[in-house]
């Protein structure tokens, strides 16, 4: 933002700033520490360590996929508006690589989460396998 003008809204452009680690980013709802502005009535988080407890293998892997994928979501929106930011770009590439590996592992060990990773599922069609996401088994 060069100059504030009359009769139109102005929002300062975000500089990238400090980022959270993946688990904390998902828990908070943003990767960017500068955009983390909590609300008083939301219960403060006592446990600093991110992520739910008592998860089985499937749930642990899914949690990791959720975390890595969320960082990609938030970075995508950032890069839509700051396409020349190299740091954000390398962070995005690193997470895309991680996500690919995790999706492949999930398809091999559980069931495919996307149709593109159905080829890794060893026992047939597989797209109907696993609980539906809204069933609540996906924590």
């Amino acid at each position: 933002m060069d100059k504030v003008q009359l009769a139109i809204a102005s929002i300062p452009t975000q500089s990238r700033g400090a980022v959270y680690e993946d688990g904390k980013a998902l828990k908070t709802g943003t990767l960017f520490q500068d955009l983390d502005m909590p609300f008083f009535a939301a219960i403060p988080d006592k446990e600093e360590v991110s992520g739910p407890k008592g998860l089985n293998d499937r749930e642990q892997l899914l949690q990791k996929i959720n975390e890595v994928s969320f960082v990609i979501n938030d970075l995508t929106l950032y890069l839509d508006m700051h396409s020349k930011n190299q740091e954000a770009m390398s962070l995005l590439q690193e997470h895309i690589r991680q996500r690919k590996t995790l999706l492949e592992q999930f398809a091999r060990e559980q069931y495919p989460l996307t149709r593109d990773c159905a080829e890794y599922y060893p026992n047939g069609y597989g797209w109907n396998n696993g609980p539906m996401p809204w069933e609540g088994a996906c924590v």
Partner: protein
Amino acid sequence: MWNYEKRLQYPVKITKTCPKTAQLIISQYGGPDGELAASLRYLSQRYTMPVKEVGGLLTDIGTEELAHMEIICAMVYQLTKNLSIEEAKTAGFDAYYVDHTSGIWPQAASGIPFSSTEFQSKGDAITDLTEDLAAEQKARTVYENLLRMIPDPEIQEPLKFLRTREIVHFQRFGEALEKTKSKLNPKNFYYFNAEFDKKMYEEFQRGQES
């Protein structure tokens, strides 16, 4: 086109039946500031955006809003899936139950059905982006109103996540507005509508380049 991924963007695991809470949260599915309206708003506005990156941002945020809609629906579903007739009667859920049993249907907390009159696609980039900024703030207020009323952490966690997303999207739409402004004459942003008066917009762009 879109591809489905068999997971929620943020996990939802609600262990208690509570139709009263479902009745409130459903507003973020089909209510005036809900996720369905948000998604359709951005996905409708994107086609005619004069700045390409802004059309891209609207696509990406509109897509994310679909994932938020799914989170809200999952919450309503889990809060009502084991509903007994006694609970349906006592919890203020009775009218919804008569019309939809425990099916998921887009409506506001007040019972008003979802309607596209809840958002605009005005064909003017400044107008639409200003609407989008307001939309994110309105949704943030709804999430805060819900958080004040619902102390249960199982329900608060996804609501907190969704509230933060509103703040992030507000920032991005602000940046999109700045990007759009940078392509217009700073002395008068309103001399022409870049989406409709395309020749004037193109001429202005050429003038800037030379």
